């Protein structure tokens, strides 16, 4: 083989300052790695921030849509319901200016409404039929009075975190805070957007 004499050069080594050369190689490698690490880190930070933002936004809209769907559900059930045990009436109090009563067609026992007692919501004027629907207008009463009244009616009282009264099913309360809680069976629906249109029934 003509190239045999040169094969020795394949394994030939030349001495030099390896450490010095290695230092510069290592620094170059670290620079490139740290650049990528930094990029990845900053990407992660932006990614996490974006994720938190999206999660916050979606949670906000989820809560909103949930409360709206609860109202819709209540309205739909109200419209389709034939079972009198699920009937309820919402007494709406708009900053004390007027009390509007939205009652279900089957709520025939409710003979007194806020229409008759406009701006004069008074529990004494209300007729209550415990067997069917219980309509309580507490618009002018504080929570203690509501509790007292409910205890008289035999409605178990709870208070939520906001110190708002939770009432028994089929009961509708317009509290001074203008938050209405409708409870059905075991579920307590919190409706704080009662003034929105889905709640209002058109005859």
């Amino acid at each position, binding site marked *: 083989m003509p190239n045999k*004499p040169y094969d020795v*050069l394949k394994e030939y080594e*030349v001495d*030099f300052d*390896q450490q010095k050369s*290695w230092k510069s190689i*290592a620094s170059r490698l670290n620079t490139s790695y740290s650049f990528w690490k930094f990029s990845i880190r900053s990407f992660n930070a932006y990614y996490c921030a974006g994720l938190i933002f999206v999660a916050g936004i979606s949670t906000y809209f989820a809560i909103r849509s949930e409360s709206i769907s609860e109202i819709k559900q209540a309205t739909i059930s109200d419209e389709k319901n034939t079972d009198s045990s699920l009937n309820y009436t919402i007494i709406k109090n708009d900053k004390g200016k007027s009390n509007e009563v939205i009652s279900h067609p089957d709520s025939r026992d409710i003979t007194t409404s806020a229409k008759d007692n406009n701006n004069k919501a008074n529990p004494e004027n209300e007729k209550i039929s415990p067997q069917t629907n219980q309509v309580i207008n507490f618009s002018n009463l504080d929570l203690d009075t509501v509790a007292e009244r409910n205890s008289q009616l035999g409605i178990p009282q709870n208070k939520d975190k906001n110190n708002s009264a939770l009432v028994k099913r089929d009961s509708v309360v317009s509290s001074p805070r203008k938050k209405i809680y409708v409870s059905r069976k075991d579920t307590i629906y919190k409706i704080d957007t009662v003034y929105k249109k889905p709640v209002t029934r058109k005859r």
Partner: protein
Amino acid sequence: MDLQRIINSCIKKDTKAQNALYMHTSKKMYAVCVRYMKDHDAAKDLLQDSYVKIFNSIDKYNGEGHIEGWMRRIVVNTCLDQIKKNKRNTVDQTVLQESLYPENEETDDAVYSPELLMEAILELDTPFRLVFNLFFIEDYSHEEIAQVLDIDPATSRSRLRRARQKLNEILKSKTNSSTSNSYINAK
């Protein structure tokens, strides 16, 4: 540490493993750089460039063949790229230099020490040294050399022939001078 473990650790960007691989192979790779570049400072720069490339792309080494062969290929390619860059900035003297060497098929296949061979190779002009290195040491074919150096395969053949002639001349002169020196020293 086992070489395969070193390679695996290098893939994971482990600095200790990179250092181990560097210490294990850098002298050979430096010799490759020197053979191509002649100038030691330029060779060191190219060695660094080559190792940065090696460590950044070691995950592409698929285990076929020895790691040193794969690394040597990267080092050679880095050197060739640098030579091409330098060539653009200088006047190409290849044609003129080729005509200086006489057409002579006489070759000497005597065995020389690697140090002497290295010295002789470094005395060759760059175009001839490149072809010589690629053909005899890197085992490239003339077609591959032609492709890499952007020349005709026939030119590669003629350069190789002339490189060998020139190398033999250099080696003969070096051995003669060393024997005469040893004779003088003995006297």
